[in-house]
Structure formats: structure tokens, C-alpha cells
């Protein structure tokens, strides 16, 4: 019967359309693995910075900025890990670099009155460097999902940079 045959063809077409290519297993390509590892460790570093600011900042605005950094980088890191997991890639969990560790220690050691300006200045510079790094990497990435991830994450980093500049302008006053 034509109707039954039409249904069978439609069902087969739907099955073919729904079928996805199997995710590659194992580590990502060398260059992609380095990039993803760098992004992952950057997120972890920003999460620590945000947590520190949310706890130590004197100004309520800076505290909220820290919370924003903490929340947004948590979500971004989760999206990155989900993306990698969907592809069967394992991102190496990187510890903080020596420079990052020293920066965090320096912030912790600062007197309370000096914390806000130091934190916000560092956040502005740090986000600028991260944006430059990711913009350079974006041109070399061929994976569409990773390119899409970078494209939607960059505006969030830019917002963090703008907020840091705004806080410096306000003098980090509540």
C-alpha cells in the first residue's frame, strides 16, 4: 500500500537523520587538547578569584562582581566539560600555574583596605589577556561546537572586563 510504504520511507529517513556519528574516543587532538586544558584551567582560576572576592571584598559591588565571576565561570566550565564529554574527550585537569598561585596568595595577604582595587585591577588585566588568547585561538579551531562555545563565551568575558573597568571608574565604592 502506498501509505504504508510512505510511512516506512519517512521512518527510515527520520532514523537516518537522527543517527549521529559515533563520538571519537580517547584524548582530543593535540592542539585541541592544549586549548581546552588552558580554557579549563583559566575557568578554575577565575572561579577561585571570584570566590576570594565574594568573601573578602569590602565593597558590595566588588563582592557581587566576584559572585558574577564565580557563577559565570562555573557555568562556562560546566559547558566546556559537557562538550568534551559528548565527544569522548578527557580534558586534563590542570593545577594552578605558579604565577596564578602567587597572585592568589598576594591577594589573600593584602590588607582589607587594599584588596578591592588590587582585585579589580587584576581582574581587568586578566580578562583582557584571556580574551586576546581566546581570540587568537578561535581562528585555529575547526571543530564547530568549540567555535560556537568560544563565540558565546567571549561576550561574557568582555562583560567581566567592562564591569572591572566600571568598578575602577567608580573607585570600588559600594
Amino acid at each position: 500500500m502506498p501509505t504504508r510504504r510512505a510511512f516506512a520511507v519517512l521512518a527510515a529517513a527520520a532514523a537516518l537523520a537522527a543517527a549521529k556519528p559515533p563520538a571519537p574516543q580517547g584524548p582530543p587532538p593535540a592542539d585541541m587538547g592544549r586549548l581546552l586544558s588552558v580554557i579549563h584551567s583559566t575557568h578554575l582560576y577565575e572561579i577561585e578569584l571570584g570566590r576570594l572576592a565574594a568573601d573578602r571584598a569590602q565593597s558590595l559591588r566588588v563582592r557581587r562582581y566576584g559572585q558574577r565571576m564565580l557563577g559565570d565561570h562555573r557555568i562556562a566550565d560546566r559547558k566546556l566539560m559537557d562538550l568534551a564529554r559528548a565527544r569522548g574527550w578527557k580534558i586534563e585537569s590542570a593545577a594552578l600555574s605558579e604565577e596564578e598561585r602567587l597572585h592568589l596568595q598576594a591577594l589573600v595577604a593584602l590588607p582589607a583596605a587594599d584588596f578591592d582595587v588590587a582585585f579589580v585591577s587584576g581582574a581587568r588585566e586578566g580578562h583582557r589577556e584571556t580574551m586576546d588568547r581566546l581570540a587568537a585561538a578561535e581562528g585555529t579551531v575547526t571543530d564547530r561546537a568549540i567555535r560556537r562555545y568560544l563565540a558565546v563565551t567571549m561576550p561574557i568575558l568582555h562583560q567581566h572586563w567592562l564591569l572591572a573597568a566600571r568598578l575602577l571608574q567608580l573607585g570600588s565604592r559600594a
Partner: protein
Amino acid sequence: MSRFPETRRHELSQPLGGTKVAVGFLSGVLAGAAMLLFQSVAYWHLGGGFWVPERQVACALYGLDALIDPGYVVAAGIVIHFTTSVAWAIIFSAILPLGASTWTALWAGLAYSVGVWGVMTYGVLPWFNEYMYQRVAFMPEWNLYGHFVYGFGLLATPSLRRRLRGGNLSSRRNSRILPLTP
């Protein structure tokens, strides 16, 4: 062929404009509250923060400062959100057919919510709230789920209509006999 005119009892009185607006207002508040609560809990669960959705909406008024300003921006975001949800719900109340069941309203509401999502996300946000547009692009699926919750909430529309009109289809106060002549 019968020459006798047939008569039927019709539910003729159309919901007054004021009733539609009232129904839309109430269903908009209910659906808007459900959507806002869902978004807030979702963002909190994902680690983003409970009041982030409200602050994002408030970026339309205060720019990026809404993400770090004091609590009044949260209140402003809530007001903007409910104003929008009520407006869309009034339109839904106006176009939902008279006598539609709750089941019909459920499916119509879900379909309507997809339209609302499309118009708001791609037609309104880029022009009036660029910062929220960027943040929604960062987490697009949760924005869509939130609108589904809104559409689901609109299923209260027929029930609210019945309550506000204070009767049912067979109420003599709300109907009259209309002779039908060929």
C-alpha cells in the same frame, strides 16, 4: 427540507474586553511567576546565582551595572518581567477561542510560548537588552525551557475565564435564544 426555523441556545455573550484583559493579567502573573521561579532555581542550581535572571532583565534599564548594583535592580527586573509576561498573556487571552478547554489551552500555550521565545530572544533583546541577549546566548536552552514553563502556565486561562464570568455555558444570564433562519 423543513421550513421550520430551528432555534438553538447559543453561548452568545462574548467575553467583554475588560474580562479578557483581567484574565490575561491574572494568567500572565501566574505564568510569569512560574517562569521566573523556574529560571531562578535553574541558575542557582547551575551555580550561576539565584537573582541572575532578574538582574539580566534589569540590564535593559541599567546596562551592565545591573549585574552588580544593589537590590533595587532585582525589583526593577521583576517589574519588567511581569509587565512583559502580562502583556503577552493578554494577547493570548484575546486570541484563545471562546470555550477552549484547559487541554486546548495547554497545547496552545506551549505553541504560543515558542513564538514568544522567538520574538523576545531574536526580535526584542538584541535591540533593547544587548547584555541579556549575550547572556541568553551563553545558556540558550534554559531560556527556552523557561518559556515552556510560561506557556504551560497559560493553561489557567480558560479556568480563569469561567471564574471571572461567574457562570457556565448553560447559564441563562449569559445566553439567549437565537432563531436561525436559512
